[in-house]
């Protein structure tokens, strides 16, 4: 598995439970117990998901040894989102220009025939 930040973000987001956890944390910080509440899984399983999200930089944990509340960190998502947008823009503009190029080619061919 690739280790670049973008791949880590996408890999962390590939799991539906982790996305649900992020949606919850996007509304405000929460403890592991609070995060686990809506899910039918063990605290241990939820902790594992939180660790994966933390490794991808999508959440941070507080230092309070007892509660360690989880915070949503939007930066990696912004990077992923902006990468997708930029990539889409590049291809769209590339094809716009190919269209112009084909037009010029047709124009030149016409001229040659005249």
């Amino acid at each position: 598995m690739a280790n670049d930040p973008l791949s880590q973000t996408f890999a962390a987001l590939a799991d539906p439970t982790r996305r649900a956890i992020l949606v919850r944390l996007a509304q405000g910080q929460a403890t592991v117990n609070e995060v686990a509440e809506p899910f039918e899984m063990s605290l241990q399983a939820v902790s594992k998901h939180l660790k994966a999200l933390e490794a991808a930089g999508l959440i941070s944990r507080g230092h309070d040894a007892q509660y360690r509340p989880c915070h949503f960190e939007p930066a990696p998502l912004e990077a992923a989102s902006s990468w997708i947008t930029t990539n889409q823009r590049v291809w769209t503009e590339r094809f716009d220009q190919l269209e112009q190029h084909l037009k010029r080619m047709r124009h030149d061919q016409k001229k040659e025939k005249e």
Partner: protein
Amino acid sequence: MMNDAPTELGELTITRIFEARPKVVFECMTTPAHLTHFWGPVGTSTPLEGITVEPRPGGRFETVMVNDETGDKYPMRGVFVEFDPPRTFSFTEADVAGGMTTSIVFNDLGDGRTETVTHQTNVPQMLMSPEAQAGLETSFVKFDAYLATL
């Protein structure tokens, strides 16, 4: 004409129709002398000397886009997976987002026009689980809406 839709998070499909036959469009997309005229997006250029096309599976497909203002260079290092003119070609870029594959299919519309369907899978590892794919778009839309409020 175009119809852009982010099909899944990290995937992209762009459908376009060009006023030329598949042979011509395919040639434009795979010939350096043509590519130099349109490959770089607005604000960049793609000098001919930076373009390498080895038209066969396993061959190199490389370009260097140069920012017109700053001179910054954006190299692309691809390797052809398929090369089947004028029907389709695909290439992988090992150094982008953990390995990205782009495939372009050229459909003959029979009236002198060509429909191209460009499909990119950016993040192969997230495609390993089918259930991981389901609902990705929905949550991405949600996150996008959230990010817009920041």
